[in-house]
């Protein structure tokens, strides 16, 4: 689904050059659940941002199927995000002035083939809290609304940046369950960034990042269910 070759990203902050990505080669397969592990600053978020069309690369190429993301312009990137990608962030980023259902509807209104907002919220186990506003939801619930919002348009890819980072273990597990069920039921290719090694077990493959490079790739022969994960 994604083909990445020699992807490099250099940030210039003042006179310092930071090589956030130093030539990454990677391929993500259809229906795969991948976990990207690594300490902060190792380049995993930068990679995800470029794959999701939030950021541009300095060098190298990234293809989404046949489309070269690294060659897209602003307008095309917006289109790409709108049509193909779902995002989940550490800090949920829900719109506080919209209820759970409306936060999801925000996306379904502009998608080609969305599911119903209620359906998406059902999928993450929030069918009973449709009309609550973000301020009335717990952290885990807010994150699940964010997942529902991300998947409601039936994206081909779901990119999650520390989705459990702000959550305790129990609510974190609920979020992971939502992610795996989306991956299994909808077949959405999912990439999850975390620095929490415990989560690695739920993935098909685990990529270890260090200093802007992938230092190791593991294939989980036996995956663990989210309920078994603990931290």
């Amino acid at each position, binding site marked *: 689904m994604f083909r990445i070759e020699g992807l490099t990203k250099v940030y210039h902050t003042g006179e310092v050059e930071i090589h956030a990505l130093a030539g990454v080669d990677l391929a993500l397969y259809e229906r795969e659940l991948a976990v990207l592990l690594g300490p902060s600053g190792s380049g995993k*978020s930068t990679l995800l*941002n470029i794959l*999701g069309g*939030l*950021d541009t690369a300095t060098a190298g190429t990234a293809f989404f199927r046949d489309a070269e993301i690294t060659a897209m312009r602003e*307008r095309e990137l*917006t*289109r790409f*995000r*709108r*049509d193909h*990608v779902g*995002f989940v*962030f*550490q*800090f949920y*980023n*829900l*719109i*506080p*002035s*919209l*209820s759970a259902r*409306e*936060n999801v*509807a*925000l*996306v379904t*209104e*502009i998608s080609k083939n969305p599911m119903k907002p209620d359906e998406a919220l059902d999928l993450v186990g929030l069918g009973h809290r449709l*009309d609550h*506003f*973000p*301020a*009335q939801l717990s952290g885990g619930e807010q994150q699940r609304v964010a997942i529902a*919002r991300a998947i409601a348009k039936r994206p081909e890819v779901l990119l999650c*940046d520390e989705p459990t980072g702000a959550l305790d273990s129990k609510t974190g597990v609920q979020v992971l369950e939502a992610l795996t069920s989306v991956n299994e039921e909808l077949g959405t290719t999912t990439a999850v960034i975390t620095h929490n090694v415990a989560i690695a077990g739920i993935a098909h493959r685990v990529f270890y990042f260090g200093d802007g490079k992938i230092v190791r790739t593991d294939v989980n022969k036996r995956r663990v269910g989210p309920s078994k994960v603990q931290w």
Partner: protein
Amino acid sequence: MSTLDKKLLRDVIRLWAQALAIALVLASGVTTLILAVGAYRSLEETRSAYYERYRFADIFATAKRAPQFVEQQILEIPGVAAAEARIAEFALLDIKGMVQPATGMALSLPDHRDLRLNRIYLREGRLPEPGRVDEVVVNEAFAKAHSFTLGSKFHAILNGYKRPLRIVGIALSPEFIYALGPGDLIPDDRRFGVLWMSEKALAAMFDQEGAFNSVSIKLLRNAVEADVIERLDTLLERYGGTGAFARRDQQSHAFIDAELKQLKSMAQVIPPIFLLVSAFLINITLSRLIALEREQIGLLKALGYGAVTIGWHYMKLVLIIAGVGIAIGAAAGTWLGQGLTRLYGDFFHFPFLIFQRGMDIYVIAAGISAVTALAGGLRGIYAALTLPPAVAMSPPMPTNYARLSLEKLHLFRHFSQLTIMAIRHIVRWPVRSGLTVLGIAMSGSLLITALFSIDSIEYMIDVVYFRADRQDATVNFIDERPVNVLQSVEHLPGVLAAEPYRAVAVRLRHGHRHRKLAITGKPPGADLSRVLGQNDEPVELPESGLLVSERVAKLLKLKRGDTVDVEILDASRVRGPPDLSVRPTLLNVVRDQKAPEFKSSGLRRNTRRVQIAGIIQSYLGLAVFMDIRALNELLDESPVVSGVHVAFDKSRTDELYKKIKELPAVSAIAVQGEALRKFRETLAKNIYIMTTVYVVLSVIIAFGVVYNSARIQLSERAREFASLRVLGFSKAEVSHVLLLELGLLVAAAIPLAWIIGYGFAWATVQGFESDLYSIPFIIKANTYAISALVVLAAAGASALIVRRRVDRLNMITALKTRE
């Protein structure tokens, strides 16, 4: 510099655009305050210094012909400090190169002493030599308008004789700071001049040897004005006195008073608007800044900084903004104030200008502004002070929103989520949204307040010149003439129609209320000079009874069917020094503040009872009309006329004017077209300046409010907007949320601006109402449209500037940073 001050400095630099927008609003308040107060004081100070040095009189009176010894009797009236008796007569002027006749006011100068009162300031030249009939001192404005210098010559028809006059001096007088000619709405120095001539010469010409027909009086400090007026009236009664009046009713003085009043109301109304808006802007901006810096505040407190230190830190930020505003405002106010005072110097004729702007007004303006700014920042500073460090360091809860009851409406289902976001955000912060709307509305209302006067004045011009007084010119006679004079006028070259009128000075009494004014008699079916009803449509004069204007009805508490006592002050003619214009509607603008005892004057004078036949409309003076035949009957006199309104063939204007200039009986002529042209010219200039100033002020408010609101929205909702971008919304769609919200606020503000503007305009009209004139309350659709457009343009420009920031929003940092 302490570290905290470095932070302060960097905060200011980072927030410069918002800070400047606020400072400009504040500066506008300071500017208008200093401008208005400075100009007020300068004008007031200049006028009173002028009055003081040139001994401007307190009371003025006219008579037909009073013997010289009466002056001594006047001096003996208790309370009188000094008196100056003189001869005052109108004269028609014939000036080379000027087709239409001009009007002059000839005043006598004592031959062997200085003027005791109403002294003239001789700019150049000398006084006329005693007894010289051909030497004259003219007022400076008149000389300038004709490029006259010492030695220039022109002709005047003095008591029927055309005489050549030579200018020997050019002067200014405290009586003619505002020199209004007969029939004019605004001074036209080309068509009105003051001529000072030797008393001996003038007395001989007007058969006033050993006599006078005008007297000015200076009062002692403790004198009772009303008493002196009363005694003066009694004294002059038998010499054809037309009723004395106080300084406040002297035309020149009254017009400057009106201007001063306007400046005062400007100082009272406009600066507070700006100060309030800037307080609001500081409030929202500082609250937002402190919300953003709550972690830093918590940290500072955790490090051991006291609440007072932190509070003072933010207070300094407010004071810096206020300081910039005050500095800009003070500079602009000083500069504009000097300009305005100079403008007054041109318009009003002073020999000198005193720029009066003590430090106190700057200190007051700065103090008020700083206090207002701090008051605006109070809420935010208080929040910073009371924030417990532990709470401060943890992220704030997401803002709580609720469904609106409004949303049950079917309509709401058609809205996109983006639209709902915008609407809920407005409703979530009702006070802030409300104040934003109010702020923007202030901008629009200010424009309406400025522009409506054009509508009102245009309407007044239409009513006065095209519906009521449609004559081309009004010819006044030296004395009342028999009715058959009409035929002579009709035979003048080019005259198409002629209509007589009669003006009589009277005192109207109703109960304990009374007023000196003039009754104007017109022939039935008058077509040139018509009387207009309250709906501004012409009305027929009743066979008997008076038609009084709304203003007169209000002053004397009259309604249709009431009877009033008409005390005839001067049956044979009405005229006098320049305070009395020959325009019938402007005649004898005289007001008694304290009513003198009824008995004395009531019994003394010729009094008749007349019924009020109706209330009519008149924007100029205290108008009272009557059928001319009924008026003559009332006076028990054979039919006479005071003057004639004429319509003439424009192609024969020159011929007609030439003829009129030679008519001995004519004392003055008012040319409608000329008066209107001058009026429009002056108006256009003033309105151009005023409109520019107000547009700038309005734009500053609208821009300041919208820009700051947008910036704060953007700051608060950066994450939301970034989320939307991540979700695949385009830049345009994301900006839509912001612009829609601003748009809704502006849309709500515009009708409010209209309503507030309507209120301001109404208050302005009320404030303007005086015995001299009143302004019709007219606001045209155009004015509403222009105010809306200016607000839209200013709001649109500032919104677009902020929109560019939405476009540059960094999605990643916005999303990854914790609020």
